[in-house]
């Protein structure tokens, strides 16, 4: 207990400080402060670009999606509520949602590639970062292990690839309501596991 607490306390303090900085910046962006917006961009664009790259897999489309996301952030910053959401979570949500909208618009009318739809994404996490977050990662991994593989994969594919219940129902030749209630149960299980262990 004596050797390590300083490091973990420092990590927590750093995370809290970062959260406050970003929340303050978002508050200022909400009243039209362009300097704060630039600060926010410098501080978060690598991460949000990671979100776009994960969704599009090619830099050009990912950069267009990123631009779109930041313009949305600029216009909606006033709606950010620091008491309800962490700033980075809010930014990731906007970026993900805008990117998925673009993805769906692009692929509209295209037949769904079922293989691709439910393919297991290659996580390829940054080893060093993963190490730093190892406690959190261990919690998450053990929670995912408790889920059916198909459910875990679908939950990922819904968030990162914009997959819908209809896609899953077709892929598994299962009625949609059955698929829906199964995934709802998986979401509840995952959430309780994550909240219970953190």
């Amino acid at each position, binding site marked *: 207990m004596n050797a390590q607490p300083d490091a973990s306390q420092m990590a927590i303090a750093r995370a809290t400080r970062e959260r406050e*900085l970003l*929340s*303050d*910046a978002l*508050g*200022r962006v*909400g*009243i*039209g*402060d*362009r*300097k*704060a917006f630039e*600060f926010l961009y410098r501080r978060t*664009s690598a*991460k949000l*670009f990671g*979100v776009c*790259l*994960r969704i599009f897999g090619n*830099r050009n489309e990912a*950069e267009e999606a*990123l*631009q779109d996301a*930041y*313009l949305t952030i*600029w*216009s*909606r*910053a*006033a*709606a*950010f*509520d*620091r*008491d*309800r*959401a962490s700033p*980075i*979570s809010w930014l*990731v*949500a906007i970026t*993900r949602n805008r990117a998925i909208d673009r993805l769906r618009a692009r692929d509209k009318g295209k037949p769904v590639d079922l293989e691709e739809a439910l393919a297991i994404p290659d996580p390829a996490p*940054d080893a060093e970062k993963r190490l730093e977050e190892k406690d*959190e*990662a261990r919690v*998450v991994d053990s929670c*995912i292990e408790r889920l059916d593989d198909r459910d*875990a994969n679908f*939950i*990922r594919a*819904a*968030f990162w690839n914009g997959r*819908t219940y209809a896609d899953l129902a077709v892929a598994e030749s299962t009625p949609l309501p059955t698929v829906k209630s199964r995934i709802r149960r998986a*979401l*509840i299980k*995952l*959430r*309780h596991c*994550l909240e219970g262990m953190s």
Partner: protein
Amino acid sequence: MRLTDEDIATAGELALGLLDKAEAAQARARLADDPEFATEYAKWPDRMTAMEPLIEDAPSPAVWSRIDAAIASQPRQDNAGTHLRIWQGLTAASFAVALVLATVLWRQPETQLVPAQPQILVAAIGAEGGRESVAANYNPQTGALQIIPISLDTGTLYPELWIIPEDGVARSLGMIDPSKPAVHSIPETMRPHLHKGALFAITPEPAGGAPNGKATGPVIAKGAIDTI
């Protein structure tokens, strides 16, 4: 109020984009007035990125240039933040308190990222003996005008905001939303008129605003701009 498992699943489905349009609209409406549900919803992106850590990467510098150019060319006009929702329940009686609070809220986000604290201008727009009251904050550096309606009723007409500087000529600042706080971006050409001593006025006008930029209704509320 505790969230049920059903609520938890719905918040997750909303975050993952799994609800159909009608369900999503219903769930989104709930975000506004159920803080627990909103918090639960807001946690999903963190959970998803924890499940699959992101690979961070720097976008090309051109992306920022395009974003910066886009926001420079299109001033925004949209609703003010949720933490301002507390204003909605206020009555005219608490107007003075509200104005002080508005000032405090505005000044609150003190950080090192923008060293110079801008000189914020404020105005209490009201009517003597009347019930209409609106608080206004203006940041001359950004041109952001925050309008906080506390009590404003124009019946079947719509409230239009005017600025009247020393020359006595009323210039329209556009329509304001009587139901909720909003931040308006004041056009560059209008900004010189918003200074200490200039007068805000509100008149009831037809939908779309006063024709030809001339007020048709009586001034139902007014207030001079002052420094904090």
